[in-house]
């Protein structure tokens, strides 16, 4: 498994504060990120960049975002997730969101907000299974 951190070096060359970093773990040829902290603008863009880079260099076929620690997903976060999904797809990989909480799922449906550029799976294993089938 290879580990790298998003946001460790930005496009301006400076490294960002370590408490802002999100670990990207590689499993087989998929990339896994566990979202623990608030995904605001800067962090989200850094993550997107880092993922695209890693997909390119590792030839990853899938990106799995674990949101089981996320208690609220609003329309803004949805857009971030969709953006990550689209950019990763651009690189030839697919993005899976796992671990959506029941209350979060229900809220998203009621809001009419669509997670349309990503797939969802109940857990990591199932996401890996689906990604394998996509080969």
């Amino acid at each position: 498994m290879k580990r790298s951190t998003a946001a460790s070096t930005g496009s301006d060359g400076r490294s960002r504060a370590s408490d802002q970093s999100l670990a990207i773990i590689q499993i087989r040829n998929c990339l896994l990120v566990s979202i623990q902290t608030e995904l605001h603008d800067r962090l989200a863009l850094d993550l997107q960049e880092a993922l695209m880079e890693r997909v390119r260099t590792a030839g990853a076929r899938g990106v799995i975002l674990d949101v089981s620690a996320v208690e609220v997903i609003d329309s803004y976060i949805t857009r971030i997730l969709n953006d990550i999904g689209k950019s990763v797809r651009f690189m030839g990989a697919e993005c899976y969101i796992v671990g959506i909480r029941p209350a979060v799922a229900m809220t998203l449906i009621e809001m009419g907000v669509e997670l349309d550029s990503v797939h969802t799976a109940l857990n990591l294993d199932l996401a890996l299974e689906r990604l394998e089938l996509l080969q």
Partner: protein
Amino acid sequence: MRTVEDAVGSVLSGAISAITQRSIFNRLGGLARTPVGQLGPVERQTVLKELEGSLRLFARGSSAELLAACDRVLSESTAPAAGGSQRGGGGTVGTAGIAGTGVIAAKGINKTFAVEQEKDIATARLEAWSEAVRIGLSKFTAVKVATAVSELARNIVFYAGKGTVELRAHEDERGPSLHIVATDRGPGIEPRKLEEIWGGTYKSQRGMGKGLLAVKKLVTDFHMDTVPGKGTTVTCVFRGER
């Protein structure tokens, strides 16, 4: 803006049975549904007279005191109102709220948060969630509350730069409810944009329109006042299911 029915109902809850209240409001007809702020002096007297008779016969507790409390609640404008009182044997009457913009009775303390930076969004969200749980809304509803506050707080930070989010707990015979008032002195929203937002066709860089529409679909009551150049106030209510 509270209706006569809401205002009087909150004073009388626990002192008069729900059915008697219902029959009083039925007799008052349209007056019961009038917002308190729009009640003229003559109409207020009519309501009080109707209440007096029923209170004298049906109320548990001092009818004079209750009538006085109703009078106060119906005379509220923007001035702070006198506090309510505890009734024995029945429900608790909340203290009448102090509001710059509206008249809403609060159960306990009103909480206001300044929202300016991104981290304030998370704070407001967490506080809203806690408050929702505290007043007895279901855990699924509490997540909806937190999500709505997140949307509104984000809009304030992204578009207005700064503003406030106020949480007011309320209790009436239908159960607990949470009122959320998000205010800013930002650029406001033009009527045409507003139409597009409600129609679902507005596309913005940061997704503001989607956020507002999402909040509207989530809440029990939704109201927005926006004046281009002056600011925006969004008021919404989440009601408990039981």
